[in-house]
């Protein structure tokens, strides 16, 4: 398989209330082995997946939020988060955990994986894909 396609994983659901966020992340991790051009989109309630300081001890469900910080090791470095979705929920970028990757094309400099984009930019990103997987 030499063809490289643009894959977008669209995350629009909150974590823990339903399993979609976790099972989306499982696809992303497996998909990383296929050397495609991968982006993740977080909009609507999907932005809640990235909040800091998630602590699931009381509800007895596995806290998978640290896994997002490992995505850089899998060369998954484009996490687009919609600014309007954050604002509608009373959130801003500072409420999200920091996720970085080391840029091999720039002497392994550490760079942020989360890119805050406007709704219009998100629409453009969506329109630029070959495959859109929705969760």
């Amino acid at each position, binding site marked *: 398989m030499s063809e490289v396609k643009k894959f977008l994983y*669209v995350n*629009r*659901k909150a974590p823990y209330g339903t399993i*979609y966020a976790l099972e989306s992340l499982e696809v992303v991790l497996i998909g990383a082995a296929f050397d495609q051009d991968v982006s993740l989109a977080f*909009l*609507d309630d999907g932005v809640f997946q990235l909040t800091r300081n998630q602590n699931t001890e009381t509800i007895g469900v596995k806290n998978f939020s640290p896994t997002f910080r490992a995505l850089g090791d899998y060369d998954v470095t484009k996490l687009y988060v919609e600014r309007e979705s954050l604002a509608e929920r009373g959130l801003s970028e500072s409420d999200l955990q920091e996720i970085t990757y080391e840029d091999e094309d720039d002497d392994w400099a550490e760079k942020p994986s989360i890119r805050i984009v406007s*709704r219009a930019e*998100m*629409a*453009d990103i*969506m*329109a630029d*894909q*070959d*495959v*859109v997987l*929705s*969760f």
Partner: protein
Amino acid sequence: MSTLHTVNKSPFTNGSLLSCLKHCRPGDAILLIEDGVYGALKGSTVADAVCENLADVRLFLLGGDVRARGIEDEKILSQARTVEYDGYVDLVVEHDRTQSWL
């Protein structure tokens, strides 16, 4: 390069249709399926929001789902066109990608 968006949830319960409308680009199409077909009801509280966003976007309905729910033709927004399952397939083929607003 255009996208077929599908929405399968009632807009009175769920925000998917409105979010979809805000992320469409000119030339895109929206196909309402399953409980999504309620999004094409005339005179509802979401009808204006739907129509305002349809300038450069075509709206389709899946006929089987419309009939199942007892929605009469005269209740449907004039902008919406009804297709059957084979028309659904054509829409998928005609657009470069399909995005499901789940």
